[in-house]
């Protein structure tokens, strides 16, 4: 059943004007429900990351709508965007983007502080998230003392700190070796299935197809193909170019 966690309609981003005009994203439609992973694939420069930044309220679209949990965030003034980012969206980045001066626990705790949770409650919640991510013996390690796989796990724990319904992940396995990449994939899968969240994952990594409920191919800013992998591993094309997903 569709819960309508994320609905993207005709999302467009144009940079520049005149001869320098570039359509980075042109009229993308996309839907993700709770419990689903939508994988956005495509070559470099196809507009994947631009799409993600617009969904995450980090970039204002030229036109189109982003609706998260029934709230049209594109209608909101810019000053409201931080609130959307800390309550409805959790980010996972390719380069982890942990604060190196802080420990693993503090990296998660600071996100809780931003969300209004402070003191012992924040410390305990951060600890629990990191234990769930399998980092119980790395809580007080500084971020730069962790391995790449551990850092990405901390980043995922941070993305979950304020219990957002939607996870936006940008190339989450790009800087990881095969075992760690597989761990992160399992974690993302578990987050969506068991914790009933939705995820939009942007990646070149073919391995991520295994956890995707829907694969959206983007080229030159437009959706060229949508696939829905069958449980057996077969792929079924479900939507032609330009169709609503």
């Amino acid at each position, binding site marked *: 059943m569709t819960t309508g966690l994320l609905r993207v309609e005709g999302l467009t981003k144009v940079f520049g004007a005149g001869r320098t005009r570039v359509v980075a994203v042109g009229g993308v439609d996309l839907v993700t429900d709770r419990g689903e992973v939508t994988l956005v694939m495509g070559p470099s420069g196809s507009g994947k*990351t631009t799409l*993600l*930044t617009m969904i*995450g309220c*980090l*970039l204002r679209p030229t036109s189109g709508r982003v609706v998260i949990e029934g709230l049209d965030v594109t209608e909101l003034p810019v000053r409201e965007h*931080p*609130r*959307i*980012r*800390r*309550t409805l969206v959790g*980010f996972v*980045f*390719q*380069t982890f*983007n*942990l*604060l*190196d*001066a*802080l420990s693993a626990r*503090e990296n998660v*705790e*600071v*996100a809780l*502080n*931003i*969300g209004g949770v*402070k*003191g*012992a*409650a*924040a410390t305990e919640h951060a600890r629990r998230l990191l234990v769930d991510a399998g980092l119980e013996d790395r809580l007080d390690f500084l971020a730069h003392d962790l391995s790449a796989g551990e850092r990405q796990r901390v980043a995922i724990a*941070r993305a979950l700190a*304020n219990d957002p319904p939607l996870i936006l992940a*940008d190339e989450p396995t790009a800087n990881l070796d095969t075992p760690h990449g597989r761990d992160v994939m399992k974690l993302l899968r578990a987050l969506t299935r068991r914790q009933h969240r939705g995820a939009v994952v942007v990646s070149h990594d073919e391995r991520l197809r295994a956890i995707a409920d829907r694969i959206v191919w983007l080229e030159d800013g437009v959706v060229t193909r949508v696939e829905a992998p069958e449980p057996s591993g077969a792929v079924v094309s479900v939507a032609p170019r330009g169709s609503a997903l």
Partner: protein
Amino acid sequence: MFPDTGEDDDRRMVPVARRNLFADKGRFAMSVGGVAFAVLLILIVVSLYRGWSGAGSIYSKLPGEVWVAQAGTIDPFHSTSLLPANRAAELLRVPGVVGVMPVYARHLAFPTRGGERVDAYAMAITAPTVRLAPDLRPYFPAPGHIVVERVLADAAGVRSGGTLRVLGRSLVVDRLLSGGNKIVQFAFLNPVDAKALLGQPGRVSYYLLRTRPGADLGTVGKAAAALVPGSEAHTSADFAGAFSRLVNSGFLSVVGVLVAIGFVVGGAVIALTTYTATVEKARDYGVLKAVGAPGSFLYRIVVWQSLMVGLAGSLLGIGASALVANLVSRWVPEFVTDLRVLDVLGVFAVAVLMSVAASFVPVRRLNRIDPAMVFRA
């Protein structure tokens, strides 16, 4: 509250500012040192100014409140005052006056160890008939004795019990007073010796009047001046303030410029440190913005960083000032400093304000950070 108060309560937050600063301990130490040095310079200049301008405060310690002086006397340092010596009995009848002390005073040249001569303002106050409080005794030496300030004693190479030759007379150094500087020093003689040294028979320099508690000094002064032809009255506070006015006219603007430079240097050190830390951590701030941190959360980190540098530097600078003032006054007695609590508190308060103001530049830089930068590898 700031985000890193370190309090273990429900409001405690991750100490991002502290961690950012301590991530580069060398830079933090240099920043704190720079601010401390600026505060040290400011406090030493201010305390030196206080020390100099307070040299005339000796007038407030003497046992009288009104000075009758020759008309046209600006202050005791720039004017010579000569009055008839036979008016003491009449002055004692002025309402409100309980004691009259003729005073002999003039600048005298004292020989130094190096063969040069140093100027001191010598005073001889006729002892009042009332019993002197112990703290006043240094100002009333016995005949053949002299009391000098430490700076003069050092310059002349004498200690307590030694002998000073003044205008051909040998005077035993009775005791040394703390204080004195390169601009003005005081020496106290007995009137018996002073009469001979001043060489003006039948004349005194001033009459120092001791008044009843609560007496109106203006009224007493007018009445007293009316009894001594060609005279006018000044209060001890006037004379005490004369030296600070002299210092103010010559040095206050210089002191003001030096203090302003000190604050600018301190503020620049804080601003530069915080700005550099902000630029270096631009990606971290971008991440915090991306995960939803409101502007106020980020501003507090920057302001708190500035405050930590400012507070640590100020406290270190205050401690260093107290130490330097103490050590230097022992080694260089003419370097008279007066480190006042109010000055210290004032400098500390300005340093705190300066820290907050210094965070303005990095805050502007913070506003320009685009959170979307976190997606760039």
